[in-house]
């Protein structure tokens, strides 16, 4: 019998559409702007926090939709972004550093849907608002630092092995070791070889001496860059967590770039400052045996270095570092109980605490300095070209007399404002970046634009679809209505797949959906035109339907595969919003093939299949 599907095929189609409808459903409920409050190691979020924040918001007259205590903390929902942002500032101030307060977009769908992981589509930054950064890792600086490290290591190594050298210098991306005799050079080479294979070593006889020219191997350079970028990704992730963002994206892109996306965040200036800061601390003893004046005159003692204080005065510090910032396990901002000035409370790890205890014991009543180190972006002229790089800025923020022996917990003062102490504490907690970074691309989308984009996108999908639906109905009558049904099915499936995959939906992504709606009927147009042709040739309605579907199939396949190729290439090479377009376009092509061929055939078979029919409504 012509035009009849086996029962399992109807069931399969029905099942697919049903599942699609369920997973598309959360998008109708949408989501609410929310605050997610979670505890850090030292605190807990419980009913007390809930009551505390509830009364706080009520007293400040900020309305909220609901407040719920869950496994991952407290979730407060709001009606709009404005209330959410206002509440976020308040709650952060109330709870302080020991809680993480993150902006979130919480699905508003009923729990039975969230239980089966049916979530609304994941909206891109252009639809929900937020910050997007592309950061370039300054690998030049990393390489320079590596060469510096090598020259220091080799000095120590050769001294330890009693191999006399004339000089060890660093020239650009090479290391130059100078010796008086060839024998010394060979000894040195063996010593270095036993330590590392990351350098290629060449002999050179010049300047009346015997030289070794060392260069890092390609592999070593690559590993170095890779490690620096990966380390930075980890540090950035820590910092973003400190900033409070619910669903951040932090990813490596290419060899030396990192993408950071912070949905919901609006304060771009602060985010930038925190993310790109390479601040760290060093604790050093003040050199009290020599005067600053003689050092300024050029007589800097070999074990010391001249530093600048915040107020512009100079201070002479010992070169030996007591501890560096990476020994810090926890840092929180606060106010000094005696003076009321902003401070940062610091906790050290075991090794840091031991070193600090030993130093303070040996140097009681002597001054110690805190050096604040930061890499600032600058532009240099190199060979007539502008090159963006970073400069190391070292500043003594505090010199204080060691009043007693302390080890793992202490506080530092000398900060200019509470804001600064907060930022410093945050940076110390999150760790230092392995390499300085520069922001090379930045996009901030305000919340109002995001909502506008959603509204406009939805409107153009609906209007475009209505026009196509009306047109198809007029043109192909009964069969047109079947195609329309398939079109609605197609839209439901696209939304369901996007929700299931949690692929990012962007404005161009919506454009992709609109375009798919227009092009999806193409398959039906091809089939229906074929059926009309067959009817014109005098075939019976039943065989015309059969022939129409069969003959149009390979054409439809060819036409869609080529579009799919374009979409896939777009996905591979595109970035950000373009990827969103490619995703919806590809998904749309696949689902439209299913609905326009199998979907419409099933409906038509159900209606006319196996019956004696004289005329088709086409």
């Amino acid at each position, binding site marked *: 019998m012509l035009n009849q599907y086996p029962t399992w095929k109807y069931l399969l189609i029905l099942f697919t559409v049903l599942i699609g409808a369920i997973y598309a459903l959360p998008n109708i409920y949408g989501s609410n702007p929310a605050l997610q409050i979670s505890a850090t190691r030292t605190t807990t979020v419980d009913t007390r926090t809930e009551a505390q924040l509830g009364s706080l918001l009520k007293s400040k007259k900020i309305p909220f939709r609901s407040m719920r205590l869950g496994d991952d903390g407290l979730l407060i929902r709001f009606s709009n972004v404005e209330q959410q942002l206002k509440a976020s500032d308040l709650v952060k101030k109330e709870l302080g550093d020991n809680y993480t307060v993150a902006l979130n977009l919480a699905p508003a769908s009923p729990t039975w849907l969230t239980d089966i992981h049916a979530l609304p589509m994941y909206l891109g930054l252009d639809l929900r608002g937020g910050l997007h950064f592309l950061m370039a890792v300054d690998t030049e600086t990393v390489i320079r630092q590596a060469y510096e490290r090598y020259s220091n290591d080799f000095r120590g190594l050769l001294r330890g092995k009693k191999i006399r050298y004339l000089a060890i210098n660093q020239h650009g991306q090479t290391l130059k070791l100078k010796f008086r005799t060839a024998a010394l050079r060979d000894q040195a080479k063996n010593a270095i070889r036993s330590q590392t294979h990351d350098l290629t070593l060449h002999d050179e006889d010049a300047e009346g001496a015997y030289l070794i020219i060392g260069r890092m191997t390609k592999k070593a350079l690559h590993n170095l860059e890779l490690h620096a970028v990966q380390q930075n990704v980890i540090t950035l992730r820590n910092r973003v967590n400190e900033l409070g963002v619910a669903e951040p994206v932090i990813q490596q892109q290419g060899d030396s770039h990192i993408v950071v996306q912070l949905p919901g965040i*609006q304060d*771009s*200036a602060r985010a*930038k400052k925190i993310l790109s800061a390479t601040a760290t601390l060093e604790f050093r003893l003040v050199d009290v045996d020599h005067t600053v004046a003689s050092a300024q005159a050029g007589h800097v003692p070999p074990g010391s270095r001249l530093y600048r204080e915040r107020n512009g005065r100079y201070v002479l510090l010992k070169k030996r570092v007591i501890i560096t910032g990476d020994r810090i396990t926890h840092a929180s901002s606060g106010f000094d109980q005696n003076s009321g000035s902003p401070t940062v409370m610091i906790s050290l790890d075991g090794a840091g605490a031991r070193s600090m205890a030993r130093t303070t014991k040996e140097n009681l009543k002597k001054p110690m300095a805190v050096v604040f180190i930061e890499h600032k*972006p600058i*532009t240099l002229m190199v060979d007539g070209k502008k090159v963006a790089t970073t400069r190391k800025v070292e500043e003594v923020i505090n010199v204080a007399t060691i009043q007693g022996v302390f080890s793992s917990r202490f506080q530092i003062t000398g900060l200019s404002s509470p804001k600064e102490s907060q930022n410093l504490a945050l940076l110390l907690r999150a760790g230092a970046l392995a390499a300085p970074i*520069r922001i*090379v691309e*930045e*996009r*901030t*989308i*305000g919340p*109002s*634009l995001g909502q506008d*984009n959603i509204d*406009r*996108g939805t*409107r*153009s999908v609906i209007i*475009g679809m209505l*026009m196509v639906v009306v*047109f198809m109905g*007029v043109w192909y*009558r009964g069969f047109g209505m079947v195609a329309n049904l398939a079109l609605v099915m197609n839209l439901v499936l696209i939304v369901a797949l996007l929700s299931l995959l949690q692929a990012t939906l962007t404005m*161009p992504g*919506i*454009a992709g959906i*609109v*375009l798919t709606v*227009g*092009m999806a*009927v*193409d398959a039906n*147009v*091809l089939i229906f*035109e074929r059926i*009309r042709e067959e009817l014109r040739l005098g075939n019976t309605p039943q065989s015309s339907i059969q022939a129409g*579907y*069969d003959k149009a199939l*390979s*054409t439809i*396949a*060819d*036409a*869609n595969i*080529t*579009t799919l*190729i*374009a*979409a896939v*290439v*777009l996905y*591979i090479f*595109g*970035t*950000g919003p373009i990827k969103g*377009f*490619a995703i919806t*376009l590809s998904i749309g092509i696949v689902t439209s093939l299913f609905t326009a061929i199998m979907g419409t055939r099933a409906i038509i078979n159900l209606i006319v299949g196996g019956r004696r029919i004289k005329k088709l409504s086409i």
Partner: protein
Amino acid sequence: MQFFKEEPHFDFMGVRKIAITISILMVLASIGALATKGLSFGLDFTGGTLIEVGYSKDVDLPPIRAALEKAGFRDAVVQHFGTAQDVLVRIAPQEGQNASLLGDKVLKVLNGISGDHAKMRRQEFVGPQVGSELRDDGGLAMLIALGCILLYVMARFEYRFALGSIIALLHDVTITLGCFALFQWDFDLTVLAAVLAVIGYSLNDTIVVFDRIRENFRKLRRLPPTEVVNRSLNQTLSRTIMTSFTTMLVVVAMFLFGGQLIHSFALALMIGIFVGTYSSIYVASTLALAMNITSNSLVPVKKEGEGAEQKML
């Protein structure tokens, strides 16, 4: 409703010389526009800073320009974006250390104007290097897409068809880009995406026609090639018009209601669909004919493929 009660009999191939002349002229004009005026690359490709703000009431641009100039942004481009309440400020890539902080400074200036608080809607900064990378990647993506499609069409059809469709594609892309160069419309990442979509779409159209030509060559062996092509074009004409029309409908909806952000995107698609429809009728088949396709030169279609597809339904 139908366009044609019977199969239409337009003599498309009879006017192919005129059509090809028009096409060549259009392509040359486009290349000329691209060469002399060039594309007006948007922020994505040039780098620079862009700030879009919304005021609560209509604002005039001259005071904004004056204020920005006073603050040291001499070469800032200030324009309305969509409505008279929305203002877009664009600043070319600047030398100096904190290019990424520029946006915040501009925002401060904009906030101080006429005592009206400007709401930040969008702020973008693209480093010049990133811009040129995006440009190169975009061009590369276009070439690779073309290459992949060429391979696919060559595998499915004969090389003459493949060549015909690729030249038709280049024709469509060139004219679309030419329009953007001629009118100096902003060419940004979304337009690039639209151009790639045009590649897919235009090919879609061409393939449907070629499919029919191939089928007819097998069926109507005695007819001269010109007549076969003509019949195939006529048989697929309703479909070509229908699909272009429905796609055009949604793209126009996007153009009118989708907002400024996808304006250029929709515009590129509109041009692309129009040119693509034209080229699949005139350019692609004419080229295939010019390269002497005959019924004998066709690669036979594998029968087992069709059988398998039937079972699938």
